[in-house]
């Protein structure tokens, strides 16, 4: 019940954060040097066009007022305004992309969990033994490969050489689940690996910390098997920092996914975000960034709640 209060508190704070983000991002877009309108039209801008764009963006209204109008519309009418380039409701544009990315993220996440947990557990249990060293070297090597390079290598191996998976993930009709999975395996795998190497590293060290604790020895002396000790006593107590990593990872999926999306031509949220940034489509940029922030913050909320549930001490601390 104390936990309940804490959680509601967190919820409130998350909202606060979101507003903070919206302000930050709005300012960032505003203070981007150069005239937004001219940037949208770029090389082929004509005074007339500029004028029309400015008018559509209400660039005449003072920024602060504009911000609050914008925020109000989002908050009360779930209305993100209209995209500048294709004069369409931002909501309509974003919705399918978000869905796509979430699908991709879901698959990536499913791959991520075992990729993170299993090696970490193995390493912690075989601490300082060849298996541990071997795995951590593999882990480190993977860690040191930039994701775009990793993706490229995967593509060359699985697409060009063995032709197991398609090169372009998003462009085929993915009616059946099977087809969909087949199409997104590679991008998902790339994401999963880049995230997992990080988390499993974290988890291994936390696990080792915890495995030294006396209550672990106690659990062993209760007769629990290695696995039981690991799952019931070690994991819950070592998950807390890992939860945060996972939350960060989710942020990565949403933000950094663009590289993978580009590489595998997946019509996702990330590319939309970067595209809109390159097009300087202010409403679109603001909306996309805000949404990605929202997703991340949501993930964090879960992580915090998890931490509260995992470590009763926190309840007293707060």
């Amino acid at each position, binding site marked *: 019940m104390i936990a309940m209060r804490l959680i509601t508190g967190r919820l409130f704070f998350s909202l606060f954060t979101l507003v903070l983000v919206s302000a930050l991002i709005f300012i960032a877009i505003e203070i981007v040097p150069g005239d937004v309108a001219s940037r949208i039209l770029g090389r082929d801008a004509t005074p007339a066009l500029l004028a029309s764009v400015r008018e559509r963006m209400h660039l005449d209204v003072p920024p602060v007022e504009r911000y609050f109008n914008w925020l109000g519309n989002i908050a009360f009418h779930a209305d993100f305004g209209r995209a500048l380039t294709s004069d369409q409701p931002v909501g309509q544009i974003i919705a399918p992309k978000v869905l796509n990315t979430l699908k991709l993220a879901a698959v990536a996440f499913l791959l991520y969990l075992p990729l993170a947990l299993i090696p970490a557990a193995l390493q912690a249990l075989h601490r300082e033994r060849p298996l541990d060293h071997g795995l951590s070297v593999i882990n480190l090597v993977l860690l040191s490969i930039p994701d775009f390079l990793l993706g490229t290598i995967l593509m060359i191996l699985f697409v060009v050489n063995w032709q197991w998976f398609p090169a372009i993930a998003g462009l085929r009709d993915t009616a059946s689940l099977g087809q969909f999975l087949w199409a997104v395996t590679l991008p998902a795998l790339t994401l999963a690996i880049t995230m997992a190497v990080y988390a499993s590293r974290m988890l291994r060290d936390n696990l080792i910390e915890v495995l030294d604790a006396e*209550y672990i020895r*106690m659990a062993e002396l209760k007769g629990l098997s290695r696995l039981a000790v690991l799952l019931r006593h070690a994991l*819950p107590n070592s998950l807390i920092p890992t939860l945060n990593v996972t939350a960060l990872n989710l942020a990565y999926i949403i933000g950094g996914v663009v590289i993978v999306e580009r590489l595998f031509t997946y019509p996702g949220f990330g590319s939309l975000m970067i595209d809109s940034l390159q097009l300087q489509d202010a409403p679109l940029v603001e909306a996309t960034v805000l949404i990605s922030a929202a997703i991340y913050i949501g993930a964090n909320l879960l992580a915090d709640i998890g931490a509260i549930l995992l470590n009763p001490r926190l309840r007293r601390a707060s």
Partner: protein
Amino acid sequence: MNAPDPPPPLLSVVGLDLAYRHGESWRRILHGVSFDILPGEVFGLVGESGSGKSTVAYQLLGYRHPNARIEGGAVQFRGRDLLHIERRELNDLRGDRIALVPQNPTTALSPAMRVSRQIAEVLRWHGAVLDSAAAQRRVQELLDEVGLPGSAARRYPHQLSGGQQQRVCIAMALACRPDLLVLDEPTTGLDVTTQDQIIRLLADLRSRLGMSMLYVTHDLGVLAEIADRVGVLYAGHLIETAPAATLFHRPGHPYTRGLIASRPQIDPARAVAGERLRGLLRRDQLPPGCPFAPRCDFAEPSCSVNSQRLERIEPRHWVACQRWRELPEPVAQPQQRSGVLRDDGSGPLLTLERVTLGYGGHRRHGLPPVVQDLTITVGRSEIVALVGESGSGKSTVARAISGLLAPLAGSIGFAGELLAGNLRRRNPRLRRLIQFIFQNPDASLNPRARVGEIVGRPLQLFFRPGRAELRRRTLQALDDVRLGPDYLARFPDQLSGGERQRVAIARALACEPELLLCDEVLSALDVSVQAEVLDLLGRLRRERGLAMLFITHDLAVVRALADRVGVLYRGQLMQLSSVAATFCAPFHPYTLSLLLAVPGARPPGAPALPPAAHAPGSYAGCAFAGRCPLQQGSLCETTPPPWREAGPDLAIRCHIPLPELAQLAAAPGAMIPTEAP
């Protein structure tokens, strides 16, 4: 080596050699330890801190610390060598047939798991119960067995006081009704009554279930209560084994003598004759021969060269000392008592005025405060002991004085000035002058700091000495607690429990405080160290005029050290009196029951106190009502008892007329045993 008397032993340790890694090298910790435990027998293992008791104990569960190495010997249980069987086999035995009660419950309980689940886990794992419902029922029974309120089941470990935590551990160990119970100092850090109940509980279980036990402790008194046979461990050598009675009356080995003589006694009459131990076990300077030689009063040069073997000096009594024949009769020594200083009239150092304390949770759940208007003073260089069973609020009081817990009501004064409730608003001088020594050394020492830094830090903070000066004073502080320079560079987890607490004390002493808040500081120490720390504290008080609020449940210690005693029950001061007055009539009923609960001190057949009622019947009347052996009907239930001067330096909170209380003490046997509801 023990004469193989029928029935065959349940478990036998044979020539156990074990070493721990110390950096590069391996250091022998156990040297050919051998003993048997017969079915239904309680074998006591006693020895100072660092002698290797825990190490032995864990071998009985086939547990080897990652950087420990078996160098020889075997542990035979039911014809299997626990040191060499499969992990799976081991798992079937552990917790089911052989269960452990750990030395330190605070770190032994899984922090993120409700108590009930931790107990149920064992039950389910070993298939002792079929479904979770049954498990829950069983858990309740077990908690009841160890005298915990059912509500404790839903708590998390950190929400229980030290005593409550240890009970949980015991409940967990008893869950599957094992054949062999390994107890590693189970009652260390428990208050007398609890300890008493637990010992009785164990005795009871053993008689009911024929459960065998290895009882590791440094408190000989406890062994007198429960053990059939006792083995004395010194520096990893088993130097004497004998039936309990024999050992206490005719100790064979000089060390054993010293051990017995070192125990503070409640009534001086009972003081055992013999030289008290001097010096301390130093593993880095053990001679090839008798490990005790350096500290032995009767040692001859040859002792330290030729190694000692256990010899049979009488039936079932073995001693490893080449000189056991020549040993002179022990000469009785006057129980040393640090001279009592009366208040020098300059007014008390610490004054608590009707202080009421409670935790956020308590107020929210409409529970009464943990401590209700407590009024007590500590004079300059006076030692006031605060006794009471676990959960009575002793630590809470200390927390309040130290500024960790602002009082809900009342005021705390120090040397005339009023203490701010909040630590932040106290000036450095006050922070330095009032030092807190915690109950549990492992939790109060930074695992990543070396002893040198731990002790040196307060010096730096308060005195800003030069490097040389710092080093000197650090060494000095360590020396005050009998720790050598070689400890400077150690980390806490390279020390044994006792060594850790001494470091904690050294840290406090380094501040040159005027008031020490000692919360169960001795409970983790073993006798020889206890005796020394007692002397130390006494000396400090004498030399530095150090005043102390000394929280403990060991009345013997109280007698040895304190000037005045406050008896706390459920946060209420039941009796406040000078030491002398405390130990002779008239008694407050609760005080008496405390006295009777002291292990080894109880007259045979005297009843113990019924276990704490789970919830006090009513907050209206006397807090002790419901447990009081001679309750005055409804009066105690309904009206709060008066605070009465009952003689020179004796005040009591009780309804019962003084004469009754007085003659009650005369014949303790007269107390009608009232069993727990």
